[in-house]
């Protein structure tokens, strides 16, 4: 008898533990907080279509929360909206808006703190300060979200997706616009950032700080203050991304500062004032990239050693390369340069005379930036030509010994 009761009890608790709760205007639970309070570990909460004016929602159990037809959770600009402090939480299909702006606290639409195995997907975040803020968490996924801010100034705006001291987080298929930094990683390692579109952000499309061993590929960074900034990090893989339209007096497609042992392959840099701005980066391989119609394709600001530029296309950039030292141990080999005027007598596809990517005018503007005002004057064309014929000022060994005659088609 006792055994039977125990058995029934056991079964019933099991049923309870896998139950689902529905939130709607006419249901038993009329708001999210009530449903959370009534829920058990591993429950599923369905939120029906409607507007729920709530903020400071704390999720401290392993729950699956699913929005049906994107219910609106309106924080009414009062502060943070959802905070997750438990492992294994799933948030799916919510429309979260109106995060409170603060100068002392980083209020976020969704914050994940010290948790693992979280899944945030199909969320729409609007009118936000910080969007998704992951801190000290690991092994999570952030997929198919749409984040649209209304940032105007850097100092009073937040980032779309921010990772801080986190590990192994996948960020895929998100669309992020009009925030300060689209995606910001600080002390985040082994993360993958794939298929995202980050555009019209005030500062950077993607920003790395002290984050090692990360990969980002197939992303598009369009029309940001600057495309991507990778700083003080190592072993980053950057593959098949598009850096486009980062155009303005202080803009660039990609900024590398103190980056070592990384790989930049098959990316497209198009219409940026500066394609890649490099400072103090060593042992980086640039392979199979397209640099099209940039002001400067590559601007090297010094302290860059043992980098390799192989099989890239440099097409119609105002300057292919700016280099500020007489010393060079970077390798340029087998690239296509649209400015190359050499010939190929033995018809093997590579030019017979080396190409020198640094023009004399580039050298002069490095020394005296004001001289840039002579851009496109006849005199400058003349001195560039004479320097090309007999180099005196530009580093003598900075040359592509085997420049390609034809554009390289990457697949």
């Amino acid at each position: 008898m006792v055994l039977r009761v125990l058995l029934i009890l056991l079964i019933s608790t099991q049923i309870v533990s896998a139950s689902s709760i529905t939130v709607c205007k006419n249901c038993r639970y009329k708001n999210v907080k009530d449903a959370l309070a009534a829920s058990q570990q591993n429950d599923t909460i369905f939120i029906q279509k409607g507007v729920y004016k709530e903020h400071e929602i704390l999720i401290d159990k392993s729950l699956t929360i699913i929005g049906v037809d994107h219910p609106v959770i309106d924080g009414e600009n009062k502060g943070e909206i959802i905070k997750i402090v438990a492992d294994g939480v799933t948030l799916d299909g919510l429309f979260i808006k109106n995060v409170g702006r603060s100068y002392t606290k980083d209020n976020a639409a969704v914050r994940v703190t010290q948790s693992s195995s979280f899944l945030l997907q199909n969320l729409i975040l609007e009118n936000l300060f910080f969007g998704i803020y992951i801190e000290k968490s690991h092994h999570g996924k952030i997929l198919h979200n749409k984040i649209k801010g209304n940032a105007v100034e850097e100092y009073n705006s937040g980032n779309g997706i921010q990772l801080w001291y986190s590990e192994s987080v996948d960020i895929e298929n998100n669309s992020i616009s009009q925030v300060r930094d689209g995606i910001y990683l600080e002390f985040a390692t082994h993360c993958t950032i794939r298929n995202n579109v980050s555009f019209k952000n005030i500062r950077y499309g993607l920003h790395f700080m002290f984050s090692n061993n990360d990969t980002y590929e197939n992303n598009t960074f369009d029309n940001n203050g600057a495309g991507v900034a990778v700083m003080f990090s190592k072993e980053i893989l950057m593959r098949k991304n598009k850096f486009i339209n980062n155009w303005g007096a202080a803009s660039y497609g990609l900024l590398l500062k103190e980056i070592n042992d990384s790989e930049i392959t098959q990316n497209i840099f198009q219409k940026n004032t500066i394609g890649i701005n490099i400072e103090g980066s060593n042992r980086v391989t640039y392979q199979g990239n397209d640099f099209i119609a940039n002001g400067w394709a590559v601007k090297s600001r010094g302290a860059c050693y043992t980098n390799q530029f192989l099989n890239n296309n440099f097409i119609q950039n105002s300057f292919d390369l700016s280099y500020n030292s007489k010393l060079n141990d970077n390798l340029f080999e087998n690239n296509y340069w649209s400015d190359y005027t050499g010939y190929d007598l033995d018809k093997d596809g590579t030019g017979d005379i080396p190409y020198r990517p640094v023009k004399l005018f580039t050298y002069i503007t490095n020394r005296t930036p004001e001289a840039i005002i002579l851009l496109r004057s006849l005199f400058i064309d003349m001195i560039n030509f004479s320097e090309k014929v007999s180099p005196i000022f530009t580093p003598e060994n900075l040359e592509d010994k085997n420049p390609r005659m034809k554009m390289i088609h990457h697949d």
Partner: protein
Amino acid sequence: MFKILKYSFYDLVRSRWSYVYLLFYLLLGFALLFLNENISKAVITLMNVITILVPLIGTIFGVMYFYNSKEFTELLLALPIPRRSIFLGQYFGVAISLSLSLILGLGIPFLFYGLFQSDSIVDFLLLLITGSMLTFIFTAIAFYIGLSNENKIKGFGYAILFWLFMAVIYDGIFLISLIVFEEYPLDNLSLFATLFNPIDLSRVLILLKLDIAALLGYTGAVFQKFFGNFSGLIVSFFTLFLWIIIPLFLVKRKASKKDF
């Protein structure tokens, strides 16, 4: 004056050289647009042509016309016509016909390729305006040089030298002084130096209107601040205008004093 202007103008419009000049621009415009279809790119290439070639042609054509029509001028001088009218009439005849060739020669191909649908129409207009102004400037200077030198060869030499100075040598001196004084703040100096050369001034004016201006960085920002606002634009056009007025005044003075 207008009668003489009319004579000179019709004389030139009927002459072969005007047609060659017009044809050259027509070909150039069509070729450029055919090659890159993109009007704003074509505007950049045209800028190089306009800032170099237009002054050269203005100079040479001005001197040539002056020496060629010398006998006609002497005939006119014998008649009771004020000297001012004779020379200014001839000058405007040359300058207007050259500008017309430029405007028609470039305008037609661009219209043909849908200029009005393009948002570079303002850039293009600026290009034509500065081009015409450069024509007026360099023709005026050519007239002065012609008037000052009886010797044809000498006159041609000086005219070419003047063009060379403005198009090339000036920039060389400018660049060297920038490098020599690189320890000092140079923004205002370069602004000042640009104002004093009509070719540089036109180049910078057009450059700042194109999106290539972002390359100019900090210096560009200083220039943008100056040329970007209305008063800067007024100052620069006023300077270009001065470049026409001063040579013309010199022509007038020389002409009224000269013993023919």
